[in-house]
């Protein structure tokens, strides 16, 4: 396992994108300046999901659409900007769509110049092999000052790391890792399902003070 160098990344980018061993980054703007020795700058995209309180008072894992319904989708075309108030968060995405080959994993880090303004762009930075999509960014303004975000600005750095999987295998894709071009809210897993799988028989729902059976929930779902 090693971090891919600029030379290796460029070689992978020259392979036709549909081949399993290829790397795709598009649109790759300002190609020369976007490269560091072992990293590539990624820019901020134009779509955002801004957390909202309504309609539910909390993110409710017992309601599958809870997270999706608790965001306001906003489009800021290139040239426009978004203000993130102090201590607030927003979901964004990279402008670049990336496709990772089977033998490469990735990690996205906040660009140091951005980090020094106390903006954090990613709290789940790992990117699995075969991933294809614009990367969802969990942007947090942890400073005491409102901050202005311009779509199109370099905001993160992509580090690519080789793994020990076969490069040229046409592995089946996972639906979860194919194709977002905008930030995506998570699909929350049902506590009954997750807990039942590890043998937990009952759980507390946020809607009731009574314990519920994880097995009953499955029966009801059926």
């Amino acid at each position: 396992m090693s971090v891919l160098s600029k030379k290796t990344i460029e070689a992978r980018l020259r392979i036709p994108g549909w081949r399993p061993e290829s790397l795709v980054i598009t649109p790759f703007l300002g190609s020369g300046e976007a490269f560091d020795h072992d990293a590539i700058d990624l820019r901020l995209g134009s779509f955002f999901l801004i957390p909202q309180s309504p309609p539910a008072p909390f993110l409710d894992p017992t309601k599958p659409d809870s997270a999706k319904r608790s965001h306001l989708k906003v489009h800021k075309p290139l040239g426009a900007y978004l203000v993130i108030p102090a201590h607030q968060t927003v979901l964004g995405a990279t402008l670049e769509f990336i496709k990772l080959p089977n033998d490469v994993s990735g990690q996205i880090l906040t660009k140091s110049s951005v980090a020094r303004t106390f903006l954090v762009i990613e709290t789940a930075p790992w990117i699995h092999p075969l991933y294809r999509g614009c990367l969802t960014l969990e942007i947090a303004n942890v400073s005491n000052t409102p901050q202005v975000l311009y779509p199109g600005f370099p905001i993160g750095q992509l580090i690519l790391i080789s793994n020990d999987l076969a490069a040229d295998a046409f592995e089946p894709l996972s639906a979860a890792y194919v194709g977002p071009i905008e930030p995506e809210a998570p699909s929350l897993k049902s506590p009954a399902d997750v807990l039942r799988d590890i043998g937990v028989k009952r759980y507390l729902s946020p809607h009731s003070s009574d314990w519920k059976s994880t097995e009953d929930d499955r029966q009801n779902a059926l």
Partner: protein
Amino acid sequence: MLSLRNQLVREVSALYGFVDSVSASCTEIPQSVAFTESSARFFQCVEQLATATKNHLAAFPPEHLEIATEDEFHEMRDELFTIRRVWKQLHQFIKPASDSDTLNQPTALISAMLDRTRKLPGLQNADFAIFLTETFDYLQVNPTWIRGAASDLAFIVTAEEFPSGLGLIGIPSTQGSSLFLNCLVAHEIGEYVYSEKSLDDQLRHEVRAALEIVYGADYQTKERTEKSRLVDTVLSWSKELFCDLFAVCLIGSCYTFAYIELFDLPNLLDKSDALATSRPGQPPIHFYSLHPSHPFRVKYQTDLLKQLKWWPQIHNIDSRYVRVMDLLSALTDNDFIEAEDTRKLLIDAFFKVIPEINTQLGRIVGGLDTGVHDFVQLREHIAHYLQEGIVPSTITIDGQPQPATPTAVTVLNSFALFYLENIEKLMNRVADENLNSAKRRVHWAKKLESWTSKALEDITLFSRP
């Protein structure tokens, strides 16, 4: 009893409130939504007209003017009537246009089509704002009509006139962000071009000549209103056909595919893929009461696709859409006229005008690259990218030192063909995917649309200097 001046002031106040509420959709847009430059331009014009109108009304009736007589009162009242009439007309479009923010219209598609339209001679300033309609139909509001209405108002309230070339196009409100069906917007751009190029005036002479030929001496004996009705009917058919053919020239075969889908024309085929029009519910191929039938229009679109060299690229694909095109193209014009149709002569006259429609079309789009060459070069590669779930905006090809950037037309048509023929290949690449589930197919069709939209956006970025 109130004085005449006081009565007028009351009416002016009511009108002021009306204008204020109509224009509010433009002036009170929340910061959370974004609009295309074209929409912003439309709002700016409306806002400017609203401000001028309100300033005018605030000083109305002028203090120094006497309102002593009934005539003087009505003269002023007429002015208010005109102002109200124009704002009622604008009212139809303002809120629907403000509902069409960049999240609720196919922004990348519209931008790509607008860029291409601006390459046409005399249409460098073409511009149109999108509005959402409640009807399931695509609409175009004649820019001349808007300009005319706004000019009446601008003259009264001393405001700048509406910019020339700014039109309005309506898309069904439920289809705001879809890509495939919205390829039909190209027809509305055709209507815009038809209007901007005053083609009604250019075709009217041909239509009259054609009617004189087919009706012979009978034509001259007809009442003036009847002649006018005949001319208007053929002109309206001519416009529809021109707009279809324009759309094909603008974006290629994907227009026809979207057209076939919207009007459910695969329903013309029986189970052995032969043309069958006798079963109830199947669309008739004969001329409809108000316009040429959809099958007739598809025949002409297909004939043009053949002329433009699109056909060899699409005729082999495994899709009933293409089969419909093939079968309709093989019919003659007369196959589309019902034997006992009383309008046979009228339809014959229309057929005689079609060569002139093609001539006018050639004058406008003749210099526009059809996009076929780029499509031929990149279609297979793009299909591979889509099959792998990759946005096809940077296409790397073995043996070529630099990646290729496809044109918007290539991306749109590659997407349309992939959608019709190969969506199963994409689904087969995904673990545990159910090919028989309509829900899952829609999921992947939407993904395809999103990758295509993203590619169109990227291509716009690449084309910036």
